[in-house]
């Protein structure tokens, strides 16, 4: 039986000094507070990174004015958005209109609660962590759907209908890719999945399942790009066609919630990718003792950040290189290509696992 309790020096200390219920509450509050801090910092960092990286892809400099290297630019942006009037067009559905921006960020927040950032750095470790992740990420879809519908705008409606069609279908192949790893690791707990990749770099699931792992990684990358609503698969925003899609009518803080959720979501997806395929917080080991010792000296949270950062960079690279797909091509790509391939890949992975054809 797997022990699911997360142990952390601070959490343990609290459990020692307080009776069980207050300890659980205090631990929960601490976890939420630190996650909120992480989300804020991540959002600021990613907004800055996106603007800088995008600028350099485009032979520009990006933000340079606010703070060193423009690092404080996202804060200036956030302040500007905060001070803007929170406009609501009269013909909108008030409940739906104000509820919608909260859902995507809640979804990505929930996903982050089960991500293991380090050996002992995880808010909760449910045995069915993968199922929880899939369920929580569905909230984001709901947000775009409700927002587009509640806006009472044809562009917004088109955008949200697109996002409904797109996200529901891409969820499938993304889940199938995750399922492959769950099957191979023999556990749906995210921490167990990471720990199942202990050993050298070749023990990461991307390499350990010959062929199937890498294919699953690529499929995950594509379908998570669609899940994230990022170019070239940002059909529901599609500025050039739908003038912003589901968030056409949003302004000020409500808009910035959508905006923030996009970046936090990106971090969550990258975190999932590195957890499932790249060994999560494990240091890369190459089998040479001296080098390995140095590598494992670096804390796991740094490795986790680097791996997620690599995936985030890939997302940015895709976005700032490719043109956008058309909606029917996008759905055809999923239903006619990605879904069959990921099913076949799952089958291949099952065969490999059953017959023990893994890399040694």
């Amino acid at each position, binding site marked *: 039986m797997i022990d699911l309790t997360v142990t952390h020096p601070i959490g343990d200390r609290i459990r020692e000094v307080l009776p069980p219920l207050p300890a659980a509450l205090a631990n929960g509050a601490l976890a939420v507070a630190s996650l909120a801090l992480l989300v804020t910092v991540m959002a600021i960092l990613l907004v800055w990174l996106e603007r800088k990286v*995008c600028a350099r*892809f*485009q*032979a*520009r400099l990006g933000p340079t004015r606010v703070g060193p290297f423009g690092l404080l630019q996202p804060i200036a942006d956030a302040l500007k958005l905060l001070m803007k009037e929170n406009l609501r067009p009269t013909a909108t559905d008030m409940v739906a209109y104000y509820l919608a921006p909260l859902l995507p960020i809640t979804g990505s927040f929930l996903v982050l609660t089960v991500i293991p950032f380090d050996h002992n750095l995880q808010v909760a470790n449910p045995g069915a962590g993968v199922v929880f992740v899939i369920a929580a990420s569905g909230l984001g879809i709901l947000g775009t759907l409700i927002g587009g519908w509640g806006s009472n705008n*044809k*562009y917004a409606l*088109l955008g949200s209908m*697109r996002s409904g069609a797109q996200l529901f279908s891409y969820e499938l192949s993304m889940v199938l890719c995750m399922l492959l790893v769950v099957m191979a690791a023999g556990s749906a707990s995210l921490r167990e999945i990471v720990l199942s990749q202990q050993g050298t770099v070749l023990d990461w699931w991307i390499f350990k399942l010959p062929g199937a792992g890498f294919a699953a990684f690529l499929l995950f990358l594509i379908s998570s790009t669609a899940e994230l609503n990022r*170019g*070239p698969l*940002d059909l529901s925003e*599609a*500025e*050039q*066609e*739908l*003038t912003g899609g589901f968030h056409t009518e949003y302004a000020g803080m409500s808009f910035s919630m959508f905006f923030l959720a996009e970046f936090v979501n990106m971090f969550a997806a990258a975190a999932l990718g590195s957890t499932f395929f790249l060994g999560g917080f494990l240091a890369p080991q190459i089998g040479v003792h001296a080098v390995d010792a140095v590598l494992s000296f670096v804390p796991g949270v740094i490795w986790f950040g680097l791996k997620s950062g690599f995936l985030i960079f890939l997302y940015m690279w895709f976005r*700032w*290189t*490719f*043109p*956008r*797909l*058309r*909606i*029917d*091509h996008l759905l055809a790509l999923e239903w006619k290509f990605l879904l069959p391939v990921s099913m076949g890949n799952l089958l291949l992975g099952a065969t490999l696992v059953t017959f023990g054809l893994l890399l040694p």
Partner: protein
Amino acid sequence: MNTPSSPSAPAPEHRLPPGFALHASGADGSQEYFLNMGPQHPSTHGVLKLVVRLDGETVVEVVPHLGFIHRAIEKMGESETYVQYLHLTDRMDYLSSHINNLGVCMAIEKAMGIGVPERGEYIRVMVSELQRIQSHLLWWGAFGMDLGAVTAFLYGFKEREKITALFEDLCGARLTMNYFRPGGSNADVPENFIPRVLEIVEEMKFTLDEFNALLSANPITISRTQGVGALSRERAISYGCSGPVARASGVNFDVRRHAPYSIYDRFEFDVPLGQNGDCYDRYRVRMEEMRQSVRILEQAAASFPEGPHRAKEKPVYKLPAGSYFSSVETARGMFGTYIVSDGGLKPYRIKSRSPNLSNLAPIAEMAAGGKIADLVAILSTLDIIVPDIDR
């Protein structure tokens, strides 16, 4: 544009907006709706308004609405002298302002029998071709952005800036040039003009390869453009399309080749022709045109003569009574200038035949049955300049 009110017309509350056909073209039970694209929309490039009749994402009908940037340039021309009128043509097709100027200058020269010195003709050809490349570079960037590749937009502008900087040195302006004058141009080229043109020519070869690597063969671009918005040769002719739009449909017509003006008959260049008339052919025709313009520039730079840049200036330009026509090939097609003179200092009537109105006309036919994204791609490859339509 009145709504027909035949007995079979639907109830008033279901009356269609102006310009739409009444018959229901969608399938049974379809829920068609109307969407205003523009005048403020990222992809209508300026102030074009398209009223789109949609069935879900599928475009049933498109009706363009014009006139948002009508400035009565032709009417204003009637109260200005011929030379003053030149600067207004800058503001029609602002990406081909040199070539527009050239069209008016040629009509004046034809009327007054003014010759242009050899060097002046070379300047005209080289500047026109630079302008064509400049315009196509901007189009390439805008096309990339319309398809969602924002990076392409920046690359297009980055390369265009080199030619814009050259124009800045040449005539002091970046967009509204007002450089050509009857009999030549208002100033000689700066000293380092030819070396800089050759530099741009060399860079263009590299740039075009880079552009091809980024967008031309990209499977997403191809899937977005191939077979989308096809315009047959016959329809292109009947709509009066010209320029790359017509040539992509296989209409072998280029004013530079088939009614040569200035000294275009002295240079070797090809007129690229497409077969399918779809967005991808229009894209490839423009990419090839840039290469051909580079070829012309190379030839012209190699034989650039010395001498005066302008024929002796007349104190006033007074056209003999009569009517005069000239046509030039701008980056978008045939630009004709028709001047009626009553012998006075100012034209009695000036009429411009601008390529963009005719090029926009087939959009309803091309976009019907496609998706919204196709409409954007079609609009982008038609490469219209709205101020040139409204004038």
